[in-house]
């Protein structure tokens, strides 16, 4: 479980003078400055370091969002100057500005397109060398996107199987995470000490660096070749010889890249075949869904031929 890493913030000088004026802070906070850890989200980094960032400068922003404070003096009559709070005016109402110094939405949500692209290219390149820290920010935005794409392409070829895709993905992620955390060798003691001190997010109980989030992330990213295969399935029925070959190649590609990632992240490099087999089974499940369908078995064509 990741710690939230919310660092206590000191009050900068302008803030304390303002609050001393308006008696808004209940207490003067006196926590020392602490560096923001690298594992906090950009949102927290921005707010943790917000007191130091130039975006704040001399002007703060009013805290309306949480309703924790009574209406401030800045709310009445000083708005529109940009000094505190949201800008007023109908032009600003239709704009996309928010509070000053607020990070962009995608950064707040933790969706980092650069990372997604890097991980996707790592999957697509079978001969890429995989860095051990590639999965440190295990995001699920990419995997969700790929699962949604897979379901959409199945929809375009005549099957409404989003639920089954979702169920298979969830069940597979849970069981594969269980299997790999059982199979990975236990951490040595100093590795565990290092992990604990950094709020690594690994599960100390199962003593592995594989968490459910990381496993799901790897599995989702490596689904990409099957997404391509299902895209092909929109155009031609996959229940033919060429369809079998394409899907088998896609499954092999998925298994190859995901076993490489799992071996690196779980430190199981000498058991790659044993790691690859459950992954192959997982992707075969998706492959079966992609191949066998109303369009794939030619049932739709048969129905059309009858009428």
């Amino acid at each position, binding site marked *: *479980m990741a*710690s*939230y890493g*919310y660092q*206590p*913030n*000191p*009050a900068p000088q*302008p*803030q304390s003078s*303002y*609050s001393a004026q*308006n008696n*808004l*802070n*209940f*207490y003067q*906070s006196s*926590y020392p400055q602490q560096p923001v850890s690298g594992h906090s989200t950009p949102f927290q980094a921005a*707010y943790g370091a*917000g*007191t130091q960032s130039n975006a*704040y400068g001399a*002007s*703060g*922003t*009013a*805290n309306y*969002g*949480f309703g*924790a*404070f009574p209406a*401030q003096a*800045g709310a009445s009559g000083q708005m529109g100057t940009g000094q505190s709070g949201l800008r007023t005016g109908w032009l600003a109402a239709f704009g996309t500005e928010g509070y000053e*110094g*607020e990070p962009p939405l995608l950064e707040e949500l933790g969706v980092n397109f650069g990372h997604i692209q890097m991980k996707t290219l790592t999957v697509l390149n079978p001969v890429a060398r995989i860095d051990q820290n590639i999965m440190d920010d295990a995001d699920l935005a990419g995997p969700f996107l790929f699962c949604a794409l897979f379901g959409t392409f199945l929809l375009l070829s005549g099957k409404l*199987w989003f639920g*089954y895709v979702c*169920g*298979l993905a969830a069940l597979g992620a849970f069981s594969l995470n269980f*299997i790999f955390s*059982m*199979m990975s060798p*236990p951490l040595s003691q100093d590795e565990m000490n290092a992990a604990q001190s950094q709020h690594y997010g690994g599960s100390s109980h199962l003593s592995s660096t594989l968490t459910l989030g990381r496993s799901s992330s790897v599995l989702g990213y490596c689904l990409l070749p099957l997404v391509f295969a299902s895209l092909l399935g929109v155009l031609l029925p996959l229940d033919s010889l060429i369809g079998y070959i394409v899907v088998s190649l896609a499954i092999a590609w998925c298994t190859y890249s995901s076993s490489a990632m799992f071996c690196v992240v779980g430190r199981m490099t*000498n*058991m790659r*075949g*044993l790691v690859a*087999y*459950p992954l192959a*089974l997982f992707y*075969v*499940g998706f492959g*079966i*869904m992609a*191949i*066998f*369908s109303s369009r794939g*078995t030619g*049932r739709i064509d048969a129905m059309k031929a009858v009428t």
Partner: protein
Amino acid sequence: MPQFGGFMNDPTAQMGLQMGQSAMKVGQEYVEQNFNRYINVSALKHYFNVSNRYVLSKTLLVLFPWRHRPWSRSQTNTASPSHNGSTTTQFLPPREDVNSPDMYIPLMAFITYVLLTTLIAGLNGKFEPQLLGMTLSNASVVIILELLVLWLGRYFLNISSESQIYDLVAYSGYKFVGVIVTIAVAAIVNRGKGTGGWVGWTVFAYTFMANAFFLLRSLKYVLLPPDNSPSNPSMQTIARGQRSRRTQFLFVYSYVVQFAFMWWLTALNFTSGVPVVAGGKGIKGRWGR
């Protein structure tokens, strides 16, 4: 002036946050402890400590056990945890001992069985996604029934040590290997029409006998351990009556029970609509649509 998120600057809010964090940590430890009471995670890790060579040789062993010579598990002497100078003997993990049971092969064989039946159904043009779930539930019922038999056997036979139960659970999964071979061979020969016909029955008979022999040889050491093995930690000699009872259980289990379950798993008929177990009704039959 207070900034956005400025309420977090208060010591009170900070204290609340710290309390929340520690509450979550305590909660998680509580959950993990109670989870650990039901499933001994560290004991399970022993069963997944496998290597490539072990998996290959064990799979061959399940299918061809006739000529394997020593069936006893190897033991090692390690220092006792209570540090009183004595040594306790423990079984070697599967990585180093081909006679040791593991849970990797049974689990993989189980999932492969589900996917293989679904694949063959799909090749016959009768795939539905519910089929994955149905086959999974079907095989899970077999496993649960077998666990029930083992659980009852544990009470009747006074099997005390916990690792023995895990061993029995692991051994019960090896029949899926034989089941997979039967289904695969029959599908290739019958062109996917099911496991009937004399080829299917011949292969089934062979894998059943191999599985029974394998279980007899292996479980002899689990159920009737020699006096100084780790599975007999209290060093009690098993009484004569109990010994014969255990032997009877072993025979009944290896032959009758396994035959029933393996037949249930392999008697698939792919031509009549949905691949149904012989005597079942399939999707449409059950819901009448």
